């Protein structure tokens, strides 16, 4: 491991202190802050595929939705009959005690991290053999199919949705629920960041980049690309599942196509945020997600009714005019900051050639 620089140390500890203090400083915005953490996690994990590996997936929403349903199902199913709960108003007849609630969500999150990762591993061999736009369309289909199918399964509420267990009533502190989910998501964010940063310093990232730049050559160099692609996808699925589980508990209600397998919102957001910040960089998705979230929350209420039009236009503008993202733009402008050394002579020579 390389030595952590002092400047970085100050930056990270500052961010962590800010993160820990945020729910007390901005007490009214706890839900928004939780959203922000989850969005950053989704953008960072998407970046592992889309940015580093060059596999533009729309399918990470599959793991997110799966995590959401799994956490809620486990949380209910551990103590009460799941079918009766979802049939109609089970949450009124069965009440979780405080201990049951936290046990349930703990085990549920564990399951919702492991199962999506296992599923990613299982379908990875079939799906990741596709390349380029075929992969993109296939994963798009996968995400939507999952939503449509989940909307037809009775035991998880079918079309009428699934109410997740309400926060235990024994805890009288009204702030507790918001804080609980915020710190949960913040812990997830810190965990994801550390993991992704570790990947960025490892050989694994170089392999992913090799796959992105030229998969055939990477294979010819003796890299078992399929193995690494699957492992990469499993890592994303692991964190997406956790993010989904937390989100399900926070929202309190799971709908198959509008909340869980929400390809139209979350599924696009994660792509957009990563591209906005800059694909293939550590900080890009973080910055992109933060900017996007501020933009969304700030403008959403101003342009009520027109938000999706604005979203669509935003996608077009970002993708068409700004595909390198913020970090890409900064990198072009200040290459020295990114550790790139530019030979001025060479640069002048190239300009003359043009």
């Amino acid at each position: 491991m390389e030595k952590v620089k002092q400047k970085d140390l100050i930056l990270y500890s500052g961010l962590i202190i800010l993160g820990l203090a945020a729910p007390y400083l901005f007490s009214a915005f706890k839900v928004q802050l939780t959203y922000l953490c989850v969005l950053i996690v989704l953008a960072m994990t998407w970046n592992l595929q889309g940015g580093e590996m060059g596999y533009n997936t729309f399918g990470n929403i599959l793991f997110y939705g799966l995590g959401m349903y799994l956490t809620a199902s486990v949380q209910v199913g551990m103590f009460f009959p799941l079918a009766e709960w979802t049939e109609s108003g089970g949450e009124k007849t069965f009440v979780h005690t405080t201990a049951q609630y936290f046990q349930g969500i703990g085990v549920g999150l564990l399951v919702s991290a492991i199962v999506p990762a296992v599923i990613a591993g299982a379908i990875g061999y079939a799906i990741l053999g596709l390349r380029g736009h075929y992969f993109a369309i296939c994963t798009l289909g996968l995400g939507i199919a999952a939503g449509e199918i989940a909307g037809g399964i009775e035991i998880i509420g079918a079309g009428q949705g699934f109410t997740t267990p309400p926060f235990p009533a024994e805890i009288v502190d009204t702030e507790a629920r918001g804080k609980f989910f915020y710190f949960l998501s913040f812990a997830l964010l810190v965990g994801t960041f550390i993991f992704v940063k570790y990947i960025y310093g490892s050989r694994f990232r170089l392999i992913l980049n090799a796959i992105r730049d030229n998969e055939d050559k990477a294979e010819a160099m003796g890299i078992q690309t399929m193995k690494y692609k699957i492992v990469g996808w499993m890592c994303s699925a692991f964190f997406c599942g956790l993010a989904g589980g937390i989100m399900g508990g926070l929202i309190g209600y799971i709908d198959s196509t509008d909340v869980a397998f929400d390809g139209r919102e979350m599924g696009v957001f994660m792509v957009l945020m990563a591209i906005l910040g800059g694909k293939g960089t550590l900080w890009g998705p973080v910055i992109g997600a933060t900017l996007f979230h501020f933009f969304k929350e700030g403008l959403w209420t101003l342009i009520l009714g027109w938000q999706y039009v604005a979203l669509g236009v935003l996608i077009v503008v970002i993708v068409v005019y700004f595909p390198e993202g913020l970090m890409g733009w900064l990198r072009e402008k200040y290459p020295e900051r990114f550790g790139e050394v530019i030979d001025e002579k060479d640069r002048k020579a190239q300009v003359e050639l043009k």
Partner: protein
Amino acid sequence: MDFLIFKAPMLMVQASLDGILLGILFALIAYGMALQWGVMNIINIAQGDLVILGGYIAYTIYLWGIHPAWGVIISPIIMFFVGWALYKLVINKVVDRDLFISILATFGIAIVFQQLMNFIFGADVVVAQSEYGTTMLFDNSVTLPNSKIFSAFISVLYAIALVIYMRKSKLGRAIRATAQNARAAKILGVDTEKVYAATFGINAALCGIAGALISITLTLHPYVGLPYTVRSFMIVIVAGLGNLPAVAVSGMGLGLFEEFADYILGTEFRIGAVFLLLVLILVYRRFKLSRKREYLK
């Protein structure tokens, strides 16, 4: 799961006829997609939303008191210009770029279209009444709305007209030349920019026809565009680019699959089955090609 269909053979006839007639319609949309994919090398996620927009144009003239069947003439004319404008605004900037950029950009367009249609036409499920009546077959056990027969007939008519146009006309030749080699076509004096705009316009016009037919045979809703995109994508990857008979056959095959899935799995799984079929087809082709150490290109 419901296996009623295997107990009643007449249901099977019903499903097959419905499926084939529906499939012809899908093939028309897929033809448009194959055209733009082959010529411009972009994948248009907004294809289905163009279809729905075309349908709403037909529905609007129906609300004005004109018979919705005229939509198959009016809708493509309007849609051609919509397509042209869309090309000039956005698509021309993504033509030469990475395919994923075109996917994302048209995804954005699709969201804008959906929302605008939601504002203008409302979020209700609508249908334009053609009042063509129904044909009863086999002792009244199979019902076939005449509008479906009409729609299949019109689709075939337009498809044939387009094929002839592409073969004989100057623009058709220019489009085919551009599809073969855009650079060479440019050198030989083809205005490729214009060809691209016209291609996208023709694609939108085809969507307009299909939409007008859907408005009288099926239902319209602002958010049902994406399944049409996926269906046409599926047909194109099964049939290949520029293979019209194969497009027609795989379109009908998809129609049959859907109708049978509807009966066997239940209507709530219909769209899910379509999307799952897409995944399965892609995975199947991937494994078939990987035996030769190749991949889908």
